[in-house]
């Protein structure tokens, strides 16, 4: 079975963000990046399938500049067999339509039976690339998958999708298919030492590919800015002791509890 896992490199959200010089996005330089947490669950799902069906090959793909190699390597440490980077600049890698076009262009004709993505990226939270890629490849998909049962001999996968407040719905889709995986589907595991050693000196191939769904990127005019701090929050200051005292006093005064 062939599985493609799509991963994204995202900045730590604790970072001190700056706006870029064009004023239309965050400035990537100076930030620390890591593998998008939701994608970890997509990788783990692929690895679980491989443990069940030994002849599975997992390919991991990421769209972006050379820095995203680190995330591809991380995915391989966690169990992907091979990795590939699709060349794109910082602006292009944040454009869901463009990224979906590149992933679909790469996947087309390669007979992946399953494409897995994280449900969304931590930085943008758009939840778009998965469904858009499936749409381009004209394959069925399910998003926000929190449990699945792969019926390989029947070429089917049954998925439970997580809705709000603990509710779910259930769909059965035929392969090839794309799933976006919700966090928490399986507990995450650490990479094995042998995988770490295998990946350490590996060179990740980089492909410059033609986007089969459009020569040029359609760029939207955008403006990025910091939200105004809502004045409603009163910050308590001083030593930890003093803050604790103030907090207790305020809770007592406002709520008459304690």
């Amino acid at each position, binding site marked *: 079975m062939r599985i493609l896992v799509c991963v994204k490199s995202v*900045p730590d*959200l*604790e970072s*001190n*963000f700056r*706006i870029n010089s064009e004023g239309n996005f*965050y400035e990537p330089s100076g930030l620390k990046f890591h593998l998008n947490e939701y994608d970890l669950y997509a990788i783990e799902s692929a690895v679980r399938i491989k443990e069940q069906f030994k002849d599975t090959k997992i390919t991991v793909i990421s769209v972006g500049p050379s820095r995203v190699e680190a995330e591809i390597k991380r995915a391989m440490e966690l169990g992907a067999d091979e990795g590939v980077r699709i060349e794109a600049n910082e602006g292009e890698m944040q454009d*869901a*339509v463009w990224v979906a076009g590149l992933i679909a262009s790469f996947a087309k004709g390669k007979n992946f039976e399953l494409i897995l993505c994280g449900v*969304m990226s*931590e*930085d943008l*939270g*758009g939840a*778009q690339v998965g*469904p*858009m890629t*499936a*749409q*381009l490849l004209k394959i*069925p998909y*399910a*998003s926000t998958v929190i449990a699945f049962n792969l019926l390989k001999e029947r070429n089917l996968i049954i998925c439970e*999708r*997580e*809705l*709000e*407040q*603990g*509710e779910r*719905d*259930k*769909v*059965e*889709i*035929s392969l090839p298919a794309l799933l976006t995986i919700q*966090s928490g589907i399986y507990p995450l595991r650490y990479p094995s030492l042998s995988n770490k050693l295998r990946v350490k000196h590996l060179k990740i191939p980089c492909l410059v590919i033609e986007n089969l769904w459009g020569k040029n990127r359609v760029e*939207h005019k955008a*403006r990025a*800015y*910091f939200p105004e*701090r*809502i004045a*409603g*929050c*009163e*910050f*308590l200051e001083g030593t*930890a*002791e003093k*803050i*604790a*005292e103030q*907090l*207790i006093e305020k*809770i007592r005064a*406002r*709520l008459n*509890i*304690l």
Partner: protein
Amino acid sequence: MRRMMAKKILVIAEHRKGKLNAVTNELVSFAQKLSEQTKAEIEGLALGYPVKELSEEFAKKSGLNVIGLENKNLVFYSAEAYLLALREFLAKERYDFIIIAHSATGWDFAPALAMALDGNFISGVIEFKPEPVRFVRRICGGKILLEIEPIPEKISVLSLMPGAFRPVEPKTQGKVKILNLNLPELKTRALGYLEAKPKSLNLSSAEVIIAVGRGIGGAEKLDLIKNLAGCFERSAIGASRPVVDAGWLGLEHQVGQTGQTVQPRLYIACGISGQIQHQVGMNKSEVIVAINTDPKAMIFNLAHLGIIQDIHKFLPILIRKIQELKAL
């Protein structure tokens, strides 16, 4: 040519088990704001089988004229059936804006719909700005706002963040028209809806919730949270999603869009960054206290009292102070 005709907005209802979800009314409220600026006409759309009662409920609650799309494949939700039905319907109708909820159902079909229509897609919209029409969304955990101008010649598909717009009370009742569609054979079989498992912990009865986020650092450090909760009567422990995903606390503790919605008198968020998915579950609490080392954490945008401290150092002091006070 497009610009000559009156603009049109389509609002797609979200529903479950034959009843409209509350978010649908928020979509209508947003559409009305957009319509005031763009002079666009608004129509509602419901997909289902059967769809008549649902469409009538929608027309009554929204005041909109509603079209119900009916096909046997729409008994239960599936992205594929929705997409086929919508494309069939939209092949004959022209809209400028399609408004969908940014929920697990909405974000399932909306991006693919936008792709199929070669339209603009803006996900998680929280605000609308006029002239030129722009839509605002949050990125980087709410630390940055992004204002996006759609390409005006293209249809815009928008998914709206639940809770961002106040629902409306309609003055009139809309009319309903049902369309029966023929759909080709599907690769998806919708198997239906699964109820939430009964809650082993009902957070909604707690007067005080001590909620813990990823900042706690591990399950072995939860005693701090338990001790703080022990300082209050009728208290319970809540958690953000990452804490539950990591297995540090059970699902019954989760607060937010995918967990429980709570409204305690006091909500103390310890090491929680305050993602929007968490906020929608707790933003109606009477007093919100946030303790976080990151002064730019989004939680401070809705907290009443903010404390920039490391919970591991601060909570033991707070607990000691409360205990001292109680001993008096």
